[in-house]
């Protein structure tokens, strides 16, 4: 029984890592700041939740589990707030998102 839970936990972790790598690739390939912020913060919080769930399964009832929940709570509180502030700052300083045709050359190439 313990082995099964551990395997499910590590499956969650692998899923979280996959999501994280997808987000990282997204941050590299997306055309402008806002889409990158979108890619990064969604996958960060998603990967954090999945990984915390996976590790909770592996840790079981122990002080580590409580610390894991605190870490998860902390990430949930700070990561979106930071992303919001970042987007607000970028918008405030004159960066405008690229609307309409995605095939238009992105900021990198201009």
């Amino acid at each position, binding site marked *: 029984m313990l082995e099964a839970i551990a395997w499910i936990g590590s499956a969650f972790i692998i899923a979280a890592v996959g999501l994280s790598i997808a987000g990282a*690739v997204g941050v590299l390939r997306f055309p402008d700041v806002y889409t990158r912020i979108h890619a990064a913060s969604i996958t960060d919080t998603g990967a954090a939740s999945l990984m915390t769930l996976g590790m909770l399964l592996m840790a079981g009832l122990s002080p*580590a589990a409580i610390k894991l929940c605190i870490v998860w709570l902390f990430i949930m509180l700070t990561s979106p*707030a930071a992303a919001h502030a*970042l987007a607000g700052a970028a918008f405030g300083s004159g*960066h405008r998102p690229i609307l309409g045709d995605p095939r238009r050359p992105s900021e*990198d190439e201009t």
Partner: protein
Amino acid sequence: MLAAGVAGLLIAMGLMVVRLLRGPTAYDRVLAVNSFGTKTVLMIALMGFAVGRPDFLDVAIVYALINFISTIALMKVFRLRSLGEPLARLSMSRETPDA
């Protein structure tokens, strides 16, 4: 299994460093550092289990805290050109195009 997870996270962090170096605008760089920090927090938690000492999550909490604070500081520096000014006084929507 955990080692594979840790290696995957390492790749994601490497990609973030690439964005940090390439990032045309300053906000790409701040984003890269913020995302790198969050991934480091997850890495610490995962490594705690990989090396069999899960009670090192205190370090992960400090990481998340420091990551949040340095992101706000970086954002204030790039956007408002000052550290000491209260955020409230310099409303965020003031139009000052910069890097």
